[in-house]
């Protein structure tokens, strides 16, 4: 189950924005991305290395800079 994969990787769900997020990893997955992509893609995305300096958003459609800015304010 995709939810179990995310839970095991310490992702929490933001009910207001419908996204899974992990502050330590600085990654966020949209509900649409999680629904549409395979478990394999989800695992790869969770494991994908980042430099951790900025949030990385996994969306079906790339979010604009403005959307990223709003979500960064929300996620802290």
């Amino acid at each position, binding site marked *: 189950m995709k939810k179990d994969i995310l839970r095991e990787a310490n992702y929490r*769900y933001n009910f*207001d924005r419908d996204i899974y997020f992990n502050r330590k990893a600085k990654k*966020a997955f949209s509900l*649409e991305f999680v629904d549409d992509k395979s478990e394999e893609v989800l695992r790869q995305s969770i494991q994908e290395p980042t430099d951790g300096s900025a949030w990385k958003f996994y969306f*079906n459609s790339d*979010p*604009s800079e*403005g959307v990223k800015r709003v*979500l960064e304010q929300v996620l802290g």
Partner: protein
Amino acid sequence: MMPERPVDERPIVNQLREEYFDLLPDIRRVVFQLEAEIRYHTLSTLHKLKHYEQLVVKSRVKECESALKSLRRRQEGGTFDPERPGIYSLTSLPDLAGVRVLVFPRGVLNEVEGELHTRFTDWTPDPVRDERGAVLAHKYFGKCFDVSSKIHAEYQVVPMLIGLYWDVEHSAIYKPTPTVKGKANSEPMKDLNAKVVRALLDFEAEFERFVQD
């Protein structure tokens, strides 16, 4: 009230609030028209109900904050794009005006659903399904062009027991306090919700068998 919005989103939210109050007279007219039509088209069923059968028509105008939240949740990531403020309109929502018909038991519900479907032939079906894909409630959306070409309306024909349960559940699950929010959509709660719905449907089915004997 909606939680505090990030600064970048506020202009869009304010613009949509303004749109809501511009649309409100139209929404009210549509609700009034749809409710009146539905009451008229269910009148023959209402007049021949047996003493244990029930048919109740309820209507509602979607509240401003609920409409804003609903529109925002339709965007990926639940976020309005501050760089594209002009692309959002509450008129894209399918349920600014809504009428719910609560019916008991199932036999009467099927009759009402058929009568209304005959009247609203060009409305789009969007049934509410359970976790197995079975239809729990009939839902349609469309427009009442006689009174407004802008507002989409929705009508539902719902088993009464489930509809009344949803009234309580909606307040508890979908409009929770912050402390409840994180727990309300948990797997145990979803499982219990499915069991309640199943029990209500089973009760209704058994009741119908009982009265037909």
